[in-house]
């Protein structure tokens, strides 16, 4: 049940830019486009965002994002924004949190958040797990990412809320996900 695996990531490559399809072997065309100010159209990518359901499990919400170099940062910014209006899913990232950066270090994505991710966190082993694995599972949908390291205000952290070990980069957790 590797629903989050890279191969299944649904992605848009714009039909007008046929040449763009060559480099997007993993991505499925959906035909949607984004208008850019100068009248050209930018390719978009359909990504999976992992939010929490009422029962404390992660569920996927799909969202189209501009397919460019800042896609990993954009996907984290979308995760921070929370589920779409009217969704039955709930936030995973505490209020006020800002994503500072996502840097790829080999196969490890290093995401840096503002301190609110810790100071505004609601705690609990489940609460902490949901926050962390919503981040990790979301970033690991990209082929280049195998593990995720979380830093806060540029500093390495040992734990977010006192339970999970953050001294080693995390790998995705499938057991927390429901279809």
């Amino acid at each position, binding site marked *: 049940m590797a629903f989050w695996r890279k191969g299944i990531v649904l992605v848009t490559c714009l039909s007008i830019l046929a040449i763009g399809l060559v480099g997007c072997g993993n991505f499925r065309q959906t035909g949607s486009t984004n208008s850019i100010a100068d009248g050209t159209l930018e390719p978009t990518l359909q990504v999976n965002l992992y939010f929490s359901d009422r029962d404390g499990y992660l569920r996927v919400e799909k969202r189209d994002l501009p397919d460019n170099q800042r896609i990993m940062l954009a996907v984290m910014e979308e995760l921070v924004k929370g589920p779409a209006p009217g969704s039955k899913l709930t936030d995973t990232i505490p209020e006020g949190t800002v994503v500072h950066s996502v840097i790829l270090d080999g196969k490890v994505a290093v995401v840096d958040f503002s301190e609110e991710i810790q100071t505004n966190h609601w705690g609990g082993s489940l609460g902490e797990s949901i926050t962390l694995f919503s981040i990790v599972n979301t970033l690991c949908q990209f082929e280049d990412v195998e593990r995720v390291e979380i830093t806060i205000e540029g500093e390495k952290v*040992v734990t977010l809320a006192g339970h999970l070990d953050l001294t080693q980069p995390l790998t995705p957790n499938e057991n927390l996900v429901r279809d």
Partner: protein
Amino acid sequence: MSKKLLFQAIIVCCFCFVSMVSAGLAIAQTAVVKGNVVNLRSGPGTGYAVIGEAKQGDRLSVLDTSGEWSKISRGSLTGWIHSPLITVEAGNQTATGQTAVVTGSTVRLRAGAGTSHPVVGEVPAGTRLPVLGKSGDWLNVLLSSNKTAWVAGWLVRVEGSPAPAPSSAAPTPAAPSGTLLPPVQIAVKIAVVTAGIVNVRASAGVSYPVVTQVNQGTRLAVVGGTNDWVNVKLNTGQTAWIARSLVRLEESTAPSTPQNPASSPPTTAVPSPPAGQPGQGSPGGAEEPMPSGYVAVVKASSAGVREGPGVQNPVMCFVFQGERFPVLAQKDIWRKITLSDGRTGWVATSQVNIEKAETPSRDGSFDGSWTLEASESGGRTQIVIKSPVPFEYNTFTLSGPSRLVIDLFGVPNTELPSGSTPHSQAVSQVRVGWQSDAAAGRVVCDLAQGLGLTRHRVEVSPDRKSLKVELWIANDVLDGRVIVIDPGHGGADPGATGPTGYKEKDFNLQTALETARLLRQEGVEVILTRTTDIRLGSTTAEDLDARSRIANQSNADLFVSIHANANLDRSKHGTSLYYHSHPENHVGCAKLARALQASLVKELGRKDLGIFDRQFLVLKNLNMPGALVETAFLSNHEEERLLAQDWFQNRTAIAIVDGIKAYYNN
């Protein structure tokens, strides 16, 4: 984004640093001691004074050779050793000629290269450690104890060449030193308590729990320290921390070579006490001299030493179980002893055993062999093993037939003590042998009954020359166990907070105290990681590290951490259990989690959310099975109300005790 640039800059710096270190590797040799206990001398020959000793397996750096002798260094001690007694290897544990100077305020030492390895110690800023090698950006360093450890490369500054004398660049720390000092006569540091009654704590800081208290004059072997705290060895064999300002550090001879051996019978009745010593009140009758070569071995857990023979004289200091002092004189029930600082005082015979002292021979071999005595009292079999030289031990159990094996490393390979047939409740026979491949003595206790019911406890004397093994048939599965109960969070870290403001740290503490009370009623030795509303250290990282360290240092059988859960959506409720599957003890952890979960669900009647294997920091470095209880959801209105009530906390405690019993019964 500027943070991105900074991060990349840091990575680049790390690479530069690592390549700097690897470029400086120079080969030195390591000597491994072959002989049992080998003398270190001040020069290359038996005509030179003995300045210390090395035990079998000790690793020493070779500095020089002369004829059949090798000049070696160990920590701050340099000396000469007879080359046939060592094996020289040019292996991986070689000095690089570089010194790591600690730049971070207090830096952890770890067993391996990475933060996933257990913490084995801490060093303060300015500490200088010889670099043996590197792995990634971690450095393998040599400690003054002659052990090696790993330190993060980014927390130290590496200095180029070996310094023959202490550098003036950094303050000289109390603990490990990377520089080689001229030969000194003394190898062991002793902390002498200078204040009245002093707390001894689980770690270096006043926020850590008090593990015991010691009185003025108590002498404790120093095993390490920071600028402000001294790591000392207690007479239980555990190590703990004491504030640097409350002790005086002294150097003492190695425990096997008493400073004041009574070498000839005193010609006068009483040797005059050292200057500054208060006179002894000995009103009626004179004291009689004792013949030479007798030592008083403290048999009480602690004994007061008085200025004169009688309870009317003030207590000058305390001595502890297993400590040995030369006896000078006697009067009635009192014996006059020489303390290791040269002072004399009086102890009651009820507190000590008077024994004939062994004297070391010239070559570091010792007269006398090791002994074994088995006795039975109060349903418990006691086996006491004594050796003229310090030794290390290892115990393990075997089944079919059930037996407890005690291996003794470092006892003299002389005539073996005879076995014993105590016909006790727990032990049918005690057998003694010699393991020539391991060069170890072996004591095998054949257990009278099934292994599951027999318990044992091992206690080693502070001088490591005596080992007491107690075996008994337990009343039930919990009797005699050592269990750590860990109330999660605390102090500045409240954990989760409920909708009406009840805090997780308060539930955790109240429930842990209740659990401890119930377990103690069952004969369990309970160790609580905190008993008040505190965080163990200034950061959560330090706090979590201290908790597992307390458990590992107490050699506990089990670790149970008590928490309450939380979720952003308040509808979530129920009980869950977390464990961390170690490669070595995952079976025990999962079994413990399963037993606790079943018991909690049955007793509390909350929804069964199951058990989860997750990398939890507090469980990660444990040497024993551990699990973390998430009792119920503090974020849920109904469960917050439950969690805050005494009866629910009591039921939780009962469920945890039942769960532990079930764990042992299956």
